[in-house]
């Protein structure tokens, strides 16, 4: 084994890339849960985003169009969940599971003819001046644009929830939907919009996997990333700032175990591969103290 082959700068740099898909999916789910809806279909929306983004990117040659298509695909799929839970008043846990199972099937069907194709290149940005700073430059300022888009979305969500009036309404709907309804807010409309935002973010996260991180299409390629995103929302106690910490922690474990595999550590590959999932469980055990939004997962039916 040769641990000196692991370059700490490269490790930290790839950590940001590894964390991005989960960060994108998690920030979307955070908004959904703050609106009082528990959507367990993140995995399904991610993988549908991954394939729709991949198909459009391959056919148009433009990764940017691919990302847009992924966001639209994820949002459309989440709309199914939204209609089911908001209008048909279905159990949110069961509907979310259904969304995941449905999404896995749908993506496999859509992606039949796209196995083994390479995604069009999505070059890294080399931000002038900042990218030239030693150590920090390669770690933070030499990534592909989606890494920064992800960070911007997190920043935007933080500001939206904390400072905007619409954010306040969204939180009110999530904390107590009956009170929000009595005040005249459109509970169902707010929630549908939140669900679609969550779907779009999950789609982006999925497309980041198929267009940048892997970059090709394989069936079931999200491999639990959507579930880990759900776990990170709990870990973050529904706060955007801590979401960042959680995603980078998870990205760190993923990258480290990949590096250890490459360095030929004496632990079998399978045990290293399971470490991100075990780390997620450990984190959940330590951090299950946060308070969930008051109406999370409860069905809203405006009684007369």
């Amino acid at each position: 084994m040769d641990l000196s082959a692991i370059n700490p700068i490269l490790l930290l740099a790839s950590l940001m890339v590894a964390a991005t898909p989960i960060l994108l999916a998690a920030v979307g789910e955070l908004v959904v849960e703050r609106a009082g809806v528990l959507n367990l279909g993140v995995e399904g929306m991610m993988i549908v985003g991954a394939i729709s983004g991949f198909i459009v990117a391959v056919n148009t040659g433009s990764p940017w169009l691919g990302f847009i298509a992924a966001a639209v695909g994820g949002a459309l799929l989440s709309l199914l969940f939204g209609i089911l839970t908001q209008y048909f008043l279905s159990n949110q846990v069961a509907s979310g599971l259904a969304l995941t199972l449905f999404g896995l099937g749908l993506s496999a069907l859509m992606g039949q003819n796209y196995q083994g194709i390479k995604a069009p290149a999505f070059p890294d940005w080399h931000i002038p001046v900042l990218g030239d700073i030693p150590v920090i430059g390669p770690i933070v300022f030499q990534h592909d644009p989606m890494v920064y888009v992800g960070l911007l979305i997190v920043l935007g969500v933080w500001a939206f929830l904390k400072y905007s009036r619409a954010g306040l309404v969204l939180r009110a709907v999530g904390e107590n939907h009956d009170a929000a309804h009595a005040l005249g807010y459109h509970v169902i409309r707010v929630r549908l919009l939140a669900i679609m935002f969550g779907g779009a973010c999950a789609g982006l996260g999925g497309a980041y996997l198929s267009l940048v991180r892997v970059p090709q299409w394989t069936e079931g390629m999200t491999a639990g990333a959507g579930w880990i995103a759900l776990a990170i929302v709990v870990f973050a106690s529904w706060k955007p700032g801590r979401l960042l910490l959680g995603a980078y922690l998870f990205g760190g474990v993923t990258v480290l175990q990949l590096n250890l595999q490459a360095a030929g550590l004496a632990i079998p590959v399978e045990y290293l591969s399971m470490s991100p999932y075990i780390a997620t469980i450990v984190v959940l055990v330590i951090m299950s103290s946060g308070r969930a939004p008051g109406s999370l997962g409860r069905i809203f039916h405006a009684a007369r």
Partner: protein
Amino acid sequence: MMVLEKRPQPSQRWVFAAPLLAVVLTMMVGGALFAALGKNPFEVIRTIFYDPLFSQNAWFYRPEILIKGGPLVLLAIGLSFGFRAGIWNIGAEGQYIIGAICGAAVGLALYPAETRLIFPLMVLAGALGGWAWAMIPAILRVRFGTNEILVSLMLVYVAEQLLASMALGALRNPEGMGFPGSRNLSQWPAAANKELIAGSGMHWGVVAAFIAVIFAYIVLSRHQFGFQVRLSGQAPRAARFAGVNPGRMILICMGISGALAGLAGLFEVAGPSGQISIDFNVGYGFTAIIVAFLGRLHPVGILLAGGLMALTYVGGGIAQGQLGLPAAAIQLLQGMLLFFLLAVDVLTNYRFRFGKGEVA
């Protein structure tokens, strides 16, 4: 204007009608999907839902339905206890895998002995393995309040990695010339989960599934524990006042589903699948969630739903071979079924009222 109004009592008629309507809707939308894929929708639907039962080759397919249905029913019965009590074990796939590994490991440790005790020992080890794997999320939930949905699901991925490591390492067939996978249990009489009646598909796993259905029916409808399960799900606060210990409820419900999942895994690995291999699991643990809901979390319903879902597996296989239908289309059909069921279910608890409701 049309408004939804909560029914004072869930409609008995719709409890039965909703799954049937969901199946019909799935066939219609699924048919449209098959047409979009360039197939004749009527031919595909007939191949999936009719041919395995009644075509002239049905003698060949009927046993397959039992083989596929057995593990699905066993898994879904276990899940239904937790789902009724509001405990969401969605990691049955992991418990299924660990049950298979533990059971097979006990058997392989005794190879090549020939006594009648080996198979019962393996069954016991399988159930214990699944139970122990389910106890991880259960204990974390009771002790630390950790979300059991996420933990049980994470453990599926851990179990899959463990399975790969076992198939390539500890349990690999020493005479297998380096190929991954264990010795073939189904070819070793002492450990094989044989067909009880040749050519019927009836093996011990199917028997266990029927026993589980009867057992669950009696417990849920006649025993106090069944009442406590239902009470915990419908009115958790009332359950606590009635002296139901929520922690104990979680441990028992997760334990039942884990043990049944482990059993299903063991019967599969010692019978139809035959050996521990990297991908011997095919997602029954997730399909069983659909079976449990489609069967209304009721034992008899689950039995019927398990049969229907097994039919889609077998019929889907035929459609794949004869009509070139992609395998993913069947998976999509199964997901769609759950969607429609959840949507139609609104009619059980609510009713539509037409005309303008009076102003409150």
